[in-house]
């Protein structure tokens, strides 16, 4: 895929939120939600982004779409710098990049019918209105598995999965190239989740879409993504084109992977649980951000911040000892091997 230039190119992106306090509401600190992210997303691929809640993955997605204004750094879309675009140009560029939010109920206006919600992008950009808009909305709804009966209903008349498909239809309305999926399935139950994920994959193949797929669920991300970026405290610590459950080079990723529960009693209690809490993003630790919780931490880790290094074949890791650490086998790996050998269950 890398023979083409990246569709989205992010360099040194930072997004800080000011914290106010005191009598005069002065800025007393900053939340370093996204703190220096470099990222390339190539046309047609799905880039998964994982991390614990509060690691800045959602903020990253929104900042790339310029729904939030970046504090520092540049965002290029399709070779064009969009970091400082004004309202008008931004409106134009938004035809090509869309977002599907985590909570489909909240992201649909409760007083607007599905037809008008899905058709809003068409109206706003002057593409179609009236009967023509209706026709196009219907086509979009059919694409996500809904039909004409659903056109004139309100969001509250649908199930969670249907709502999420409506949101996807709205995101598709402008025929974008790039869609950020912000935990699109975290509020639906598992059976619906699989359906929605498969729909997204089908749509991607059909329309040649590029996804940025944000989730905290490692197995979902693995299922969906070509490459996976792991975020910790506003930074990307590992970016891998490989199976995240098998080859991990960063201790944090390994810890994440090890924490995924396994549906097999023989492996019970073997999962390694990460010690300690995520440090406050207001005052992130010096040096490597993971060092206070890292079992391999050495002196250098608390002083120098490790850069994101290429370990060959596009596998990027931000760890001073990347490749030199022996994690042993994670329970997941053992389980997977056991499953392959036909010994599981």
């Amino acid at each position: 895929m890398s023979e083409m230039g990246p569709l989205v190119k992010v360099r040194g992106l930072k997004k800080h939120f000011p914290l106010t306090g005191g009598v005069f509401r002065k800025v007393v600190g900053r939340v370093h939600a996204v703190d220096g992210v470099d990222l390339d997303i190539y046309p047609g691929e799905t880039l998964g982004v994982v991390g614990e809640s509060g690691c800045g993955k959602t903020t990253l997605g929104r900042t790339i779409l310029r729904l939030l204004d970046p504090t520092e750094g540049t965002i290029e879309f399709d070779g064009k710098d969009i970091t400082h675009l004004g309202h008008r140009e931004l409106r134009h560029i938004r035809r090509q990049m869309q977002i599907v939010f985590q909570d489909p109920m909240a992201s649909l206006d409760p007083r607007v019918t599905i037809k008008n919600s899905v058709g809003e992008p068409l109206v706003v950009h002057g593409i179609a209105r009236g009967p023509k808009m209706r026709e196009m909305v219907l086509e979009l709804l059919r694409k996500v598995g809904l039909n004409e009966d659903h056109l004139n209903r309100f969001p509250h008349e649908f199930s969670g999965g249907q709502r999420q498909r409506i949101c996807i239809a709205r995101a598709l309305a402008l025929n974008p190239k790039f869609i950020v999926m912000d935990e699109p399935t975290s509020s639906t139950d598992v059976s619906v989740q699989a359906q929605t994920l498969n729909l997204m994959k089908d749509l991607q193949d059909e329309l040649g879409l590029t996804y940025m797929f944000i989730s905290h669920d490692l197995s979902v991300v693995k299922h969906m993504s070509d490459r996976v970026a792991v975020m910790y405290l506003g930074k990307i610590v590992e970016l891998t084109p490989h199976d995240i459950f098998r080859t991990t080079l960063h201790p944090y990723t390994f810890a994440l992977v090890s924490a995924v529960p396994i549906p097999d009693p023989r492996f019970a209690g073997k999962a390694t649980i990460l010690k300690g809490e995520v440090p406050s993003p207001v005052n992130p630790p010096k040096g490597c951000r993971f060092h206070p919780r890292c079992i391999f931490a050495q002196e250098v880790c608390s002083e120098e911040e490790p850069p994101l290094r290429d370990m060959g074949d596009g596998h990027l890791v931000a760890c001073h000892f990347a490749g030199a650490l022996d994690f042993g086998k994670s329970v997941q790996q053992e389980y997977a091997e056991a499953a392959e050998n036909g010994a599981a269950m």
Partner: protein
Amino acid sequence: MTEEYHLRSDEIPIDPSTVGQFRVLWFLELVVSIMLTILGGILFVGDVTYSIIERLGYPVVPPDWIIGKFAIGFAIAVLGLIAVRIAAALENYEMWTFSALLYVNLISAGSLILTELSTGLYAAVFVLVPVVLLFLPGVKSYWWETFVEDMVPRLREFRYSMHLVRKSPLVVVGIVIIVAFVILALLAPWVAPYGPEERIWADTNLPPGSPSNVPGNPVHYWGTDNSGGDVFSRILYGAQVDLRVAITVVIVAIVIGTFLGAVSGYYGGKLDELLMRVTDVFFAFPGLILAMAIVMALGSRSLENISVALMVTWWPTYARLVRGQVLLEREKLYVEAARSVGASDARILIYHIIPNTIQPIIVQATMDTGAVLLVAAGLSFIGFGPPAGIAEWGLMIAKGQEYFSISPWAVFFPGFAILLVSLALNLVGDGIRDILDPKLRRR
């Protein structure tokens, strides 16, 4: 940017045979809009100018038809300006204009009738002509289908609300009382046996149900007051006066408050800070006392000045309410979703945020209509209202009070009317709060 899209901006196909009908509609709407703007402007600017000149101490006698018309004049002028925008968009066959024209022209016609001027009545008929033209077959084909389709789900929701209303007896009782009073007020000239300021000097202080001492006169259902006025008739005419004051005050307060509250809530910053401090100042004054001072400052004691004073004291309530709601809605995901598809600020505010804040406003407005009624009656009770003789509930109580040992009914009935209407409005407001609450609706 070089990519091709399968969706392309396209014009609505225009049937050449309809162009003529369109031109007529467009031209008429243009005339209507200009007429509305000028007419409203005259009423608004005229009334305000006269009041200012009067305040400056110059002896002027404003023509009768202009007195107290500033609020309705302002409303008509604003509607006119909206109509200008519609007429301009009509030229380009823009989709939204058809339903907008329908609504705006109907509201304008209603406002024109409310001016109670004969010119207003003619103008109202004229404003309705473009509405009729909308239904010409050539024009109808452009909008009717979409309009009907969009109405169906709304009607469905409305019917469901009605179903919920029917299930709560207190709301039904409230609605019945309000509707009854409104109808009686409108039909007062036909229903009331006596005129509003008619005095039957032979019939002073008669108890309820007494026949008139003047042969051939109708029975005094609720008795007469000390100067021979028929209490029942005067209450019916008083309903006209009191309800109009209460409703105009609330509407004007809502319009001003919603505009300021929405803008300051959505944009925030310095403007917001300033507006909040101003509302703080208004909240620091108890409503009745500030209203009394404003009536005095306006120079003369009259219902018009009571209305103005109450508008001045009431708008901060709505500014606060709407601002709070907007702040709440602004953070909702659907607003961000609308922004992410490229909707403009104005569109988000008008199309998404305001409709979602309207429910608490309706509830507040219903209850406030009762509250304004109480305060307005209270103001005219202590002598800030119209001169003696006018049929107005608060004033009737004030006058009746002087003789209340002789004719207590002259105090009881007007006060009871106030209580009943105000209670009904509160019952409805309280009830629809639950009915409209999306959390309690079907899910």
